[in-house]
């Protein structure tokens, strides 16, 4: 009797809530999504190709520009892969500092994710700015150790570029002391908010089988109830020395993904605390030639980044430049299931589902 026509809307590439230049081609019936196709590549810089003409050390600043909200973790993943390839030993102190930096970075990245997700839900910038305050403190610490707030370029093959300054530890101590209180505040701000619950519970459910099948990783995977964290499943660096939990949730909806980040921040604080207590003295860098020539061979090194499994696949032909430099970026692979969880939901749901997946276009497009 009544016939309606679906309308097609291009969300993005310029849209306030697509996390950069990301486009969704959505077909609507009213406000219900019939079909959705993610379109990206607007930020493609060919970092994989560029890497083939740089030395191993020169690639480190490029990894900063992958997921620019978690540059420290990218550094970490890359240097670990190269060290695995060239079989380089890293001093103890450097390992501990790397873990501290990586976990701080995880907190900072999760803060951004949660803040932006709530912003997309319509909480007008307030949660975002509160979380930004804490992130700013972490950036202050990073600026102190390496001189930059976003693109750190701090880790080196065989250690770190330089040791931490004197005033770092007291400042970190204060931060770690206060952080659990702030996490409680964020919980109070919105965790029980009826509107938030109604918006996020049962929205964008990703069942565990599908999550594994779609190669989803990181907090999104764990929110679906799969206990898979590379820090525990395949411990790299010195993660086997710390006592921490791998939190998981059951439902795999947007709310669980939001909870996951809050829970993981608490665990990260725990790890940083332990690493601070155990931090040994000593060198932070093994001397490695600037034109490192790893032996012929290949390596796949992966770590648990804030967004998921961040892997570097390096093929060496014995020259100072990698023969092939491939990045297994979690953000793009986590997007695989985006269409499936959005179809049949409303427009507003798609926006927060995208927010809960937590993409960073620098990493998606590379």
């Amino acid at each position, binding site marked *: 009797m009544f016939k309606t026509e679906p309308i097609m809307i291009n969300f993005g590439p310029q849209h306030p809530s697509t996390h950069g230049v990301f486009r969704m081609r959505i077909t609507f019936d009213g406000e219900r999504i019939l079909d959705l196709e993610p379109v990206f*590549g607007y930020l493609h810089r060919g970092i994989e*190709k560029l890497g083939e003409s740089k030395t191993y050390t020169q690639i480190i600043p490029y990894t900063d520009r992958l997921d620019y909200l978690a540059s420290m973790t990218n550094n970490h993943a890359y240097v670990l892969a190269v060290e695995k390839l060239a079989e380089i030993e890293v001093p103890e102190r450097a390992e501990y500092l790397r873990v501290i930096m990586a976990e701080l970075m995880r907190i900072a990245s999760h803060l951004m994710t949660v803040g932006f997700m709530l912003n997309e839900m319509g909480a007008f910038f307030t949660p975002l700015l509160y979380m930004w305050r804490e992130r700013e403190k972490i950036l202050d610490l990073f600026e102190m150790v390496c001189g930059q707030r976003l693109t750190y370029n701090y880790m080196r093959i065989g250690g770190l570029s330089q040791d931490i300054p004197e005033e770092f530890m007291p400042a970190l101590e204060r931060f770690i002391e206060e952080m659990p209180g702030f996490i409680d505040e964020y919980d109070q701000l919105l965790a029980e908010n009826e509107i938030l619950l109604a918006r996020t519970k049962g929205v964008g459910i990703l069942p565990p089988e599908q999550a594994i099948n779609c190669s989803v990783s990181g907090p999104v995977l764990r929110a679906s109830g799969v206990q898979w964290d590379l820090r525990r499943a395949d411990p790299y660096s010195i993660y086997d020395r710390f006592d921490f939990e791998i939190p998981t949730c059951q439902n795999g909806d947007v709310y669980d993904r939001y909870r996951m980040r809050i829970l993981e921040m608490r665990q990260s604080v725990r790890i940083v605390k332990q690493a601070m207590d155990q931090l040994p003295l000593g060198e932070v860098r093994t001397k490695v030639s600037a034109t490192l020539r790893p032996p012929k061979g290949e390596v796949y090194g992966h770590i648990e980044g804030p967004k998921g499994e961040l892997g570097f696949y390096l093929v060496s032909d014995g020259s100072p430049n990698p023969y092939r430099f491939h990045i297994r970026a979690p953000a*793009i692979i986590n997007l695989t299931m985006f269409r499936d969880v959005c179809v049949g939901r409303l427009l507003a749901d798609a926006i927060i589902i995208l927010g809960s997946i937590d993409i960073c276009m620098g990493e998606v497009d590379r």
Partner: protein
Amino acid sequence: MTIALSGEDVARRIGEHLPDAVTEFSETAVFIKVEDVLDIARFLKETPRLEFDYLNSITAVDYTEHFEVVYHLTSITNNHSIVLKTRCYDRENPRVPSVVSLWQGADFQEREVYDLMGIAFDGHPNLKRILLWEGFAGHPLRKDYGSGV
């Protein structure tokens, strides 16, 4: 700790299922024939005690005389991993069977390999360029890209 299964071990298991499919194996990797990719992938995914349910990454390397497509597989159930490789000697029109039907996570990664390396995946539901625009000439990650072509 994720146990990296030895290539020899896995090659033997594959050999029991599909003789002649394995061309070569190394300490960590198994090299298989292009036409058997889908079959072996299904075998690796569905055989008990192998159960490679998680596809970490798909990528390709251009060794000028051939392309090598690399699959990193992990079993979340058993916490072990293997690297699966296949070689593609046709430079003009390289084709590899798609594994999207087994692991949906291969979707974007195969499109990326197609886009940047120019290897077509047979059976992929939506094989088109993903990072570069439609109509882009050439495949940038090939070693001969930009060298006067």
